[in-house]
């Protein structure tokens, strides 16, 4: 009577996953949250650009030959944190014209002579200091040369920062904090999706109809994989946007660091999601109403929050004992380890160990959790105790 073949496990899991994805993609709240996240990220990068580029560029016109004074001005500018471009101008008239047209911020007349003059529209102390420094520097060295003094040996000041390579360090910390916040937000969000989905099926009793066609683990796997694919797509999208944006806006100095942080965040999302989604699903299967969800999710949620705070703290001090120890603990490692990796002082074996421990935890959660889920799914009305669910697996 039925020409249709019976669907296999893969087919059933795929069907369940497909339903989860299409339901979420049509969920307005989900789309809005995605758009808001992306906008926030782009806004953050724009902010970075605005802060780092505000008013530290300048154009200076020099009348006459600038071969000597030009490099001196650029060097002085660099010391003062201003990116100065030197433009050669023909005569004083051209210089006045250029300043009035605001083609240049200032024009230097008679740079090599005894009466150097700086024409500006408005007085600008930084510009004045740069020009003064350059003019006097050039004058002193030419006078010394005229007096026959050799100035080849000018001592260079070597700078040693006690906080390490501070520029890149700050950038890494910031990147790590943003990555961890996103990771945390996505884990919570998709964990909640899984939990709500499980309770929705229990509350609406549709689960009885579903279990007449498939086994509990197939339903659970489909749900977790479907939402996981969506979560992965979202974090990859966000990661790609941040890398492309950061390169385009030239926000970061070391793109390699950013890319490796994004990649490790994505990998840790996969592990973290696998564990937390299973735990959320199992906890949710114990209750039959959305209102009761909060109480059963609290312990798992707490673990995530603790991990998040340790990670934020670890971002500023990645080698603290707390950060090192928690970066191995399954459940905390997905949040803490990426921070340590971003700081760059983690050996490969440490990451491998954290991954292995995490995999062990995931396998345990899936096996024990799967039994609880199967036992609790058909027990509607009130809250099922863990022990009951384990004992009652499909009884």
């Amino acid at each position: 009577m039925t020409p249709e073949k019976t669907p296999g496990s893969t087919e059933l899991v795929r069907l369940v996953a497909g339903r989860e994805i299409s339901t979420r993609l049509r969920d307005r709240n989900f789309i809005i949250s995605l758009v808001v996240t992306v906008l926030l990220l782009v806004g953050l990068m724009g902010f970075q650009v605005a802060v780092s580029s505000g008013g530290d560029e300048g154009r200076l016109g020099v009348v006459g030959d600038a071969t000597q004074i030009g490099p001196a001005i650029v060097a002085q500018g660099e010391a003062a944190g201003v990116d100065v471009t030197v433009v050669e101008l023909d005569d004083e008239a051209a210089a006045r014209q250029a300043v009035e047209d605001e083609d240049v911020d200032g024009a230097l007349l008679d740079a090599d002579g005894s009466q150097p003059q700086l024409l500006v529209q408005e007085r600008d102390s930084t510009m004045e200091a740069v020009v003064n420094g350059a003019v006097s520097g050039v004058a002193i060295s030419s006078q010394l040369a005229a007096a026959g003094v050799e100035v080849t040996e000018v001592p260079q000041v070597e700078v040693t920062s006690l906080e390490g390579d501070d520029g890149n360090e700050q950038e890494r910390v910031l990147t790590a904090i943003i990555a961890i916040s996103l990771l945390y937000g996505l884990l919570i969000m998709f964990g909640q999706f899984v939990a709500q989905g499980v309770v929705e099926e229990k509350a609406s009793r549709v689960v009885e109809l579903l279990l007449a066609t498939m086994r509990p683990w197939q339903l659970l796997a489909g749900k977790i994989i479907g939402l996981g694919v969506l979560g992965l797509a979202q974090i990859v999208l966000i990661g790609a946007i941040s890398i492309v944006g950061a390169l385009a806006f030239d926000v970061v100095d070391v793109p390699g660091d950013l890319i490796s942080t994004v990649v490790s965040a994505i990998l840790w999302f996969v592990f973290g999601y696998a564990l937390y989604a299973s735990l959320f699903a199992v906890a949710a299967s114990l209750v039959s109403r959305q209102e009761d969800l909060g109480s059963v999710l609290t312990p798992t949620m707490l673990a995530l929050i603790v991990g998040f705070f340790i990670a934020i703290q670890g971002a500023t001090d990645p080698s603290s004992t707390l950060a090192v120890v928690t970066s191995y603990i399954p459940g905390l490692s997905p949040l803490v380890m990426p921070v340590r990796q971003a700081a760059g002082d983690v050996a490969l074996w440490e990451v491998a160990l954290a991954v292995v421990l995490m995999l062990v935890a995931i396998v345990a959660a899936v096996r024990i959790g799967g039994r609880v889920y199967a036992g609790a799914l058909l027990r509607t009305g009130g809250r099922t105790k863990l022990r009951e669910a384990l004992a009652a697996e499909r009884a």
Partner: protein
Amino acid sequence: MLEFDGLRKSFGANQVLDGVSFAVRPGSMFGFCGSNGAGKTTTMRIAMGLARAEAGEVRWHGRPLDQQVRRRIGYMPEERGLYPKMKVGEQITYFARLHGMDAGAAGRASAEWTERLGLGARRGDAVEKLSLGNQQRVQLAAALVSRPEVLILDEPFSGLDPVGVDSLAEALLGQVREGVPVVFSSHQLDLVERLCDSVGILARGRIVAAGTVEELRAAESGRLLRVVVPEAPPGWAGGVPGARVVSEQAGDTLLELAPGTDDQAVLAAALRTGRVTHFAWREPTLVELFRGAVADPRTEDAEVAA
């Protein structure tokens, strides 16, 4: 044959099913009756793999039901269940696919069944926006959409208005004509009597009576005698050996005769009181059969093989 064979199940100290056995022929409708809490739902859930029997099994074509066979069974659970926010058409398509139809066939079957059950205009609406009666139709569509070989329906008629009852009955009879065995439970015994080829009554964890309605009547008939004696004094039949008065109202008397009692002796006693205007064996209704079967422990002996 769809065979339920020796199902046993207990919840704690409560033995709910104590050897439930019956069989349903392809192309026949089986009405499953019993008091509340008798174990009808548990029996059906065991068939669907939603509860595990301690002993016994359910077979289709001689093969014990497993996950593969169950996908060819249409099921309507007692607790109705659908995704509230999913659209009607998509939901039915989804269930068709879970039962093994490919995307194209599932879409066509979904369109066909929503049309046949009068839901064509509501296909794009979320289930939660529908009236309860219409939700029930969606539930039925979900059970029928995959062209199941067997139908197991738990209280399919409950909550339906008379028009809804008629259209559901029509749909089920259509399935039976196509050779599908249909098992449904119901408290509406008149409906069971009208629709079903055979009936099983579940009480105290066992099938206490099973067979066609006629067979049940045959087992019970020869026991209830209606005698109308307008002039008789109250309690006139009290002295007749082997006869028990079930009811008596102004001479309209219902008597239950013990096996072996001579009905002619009853007639003679009636004639002694005066005029006899009515003397006949009475066909028990299913309601009376049900009451007798459920209430009286002696009827356990009166089991009839289906």
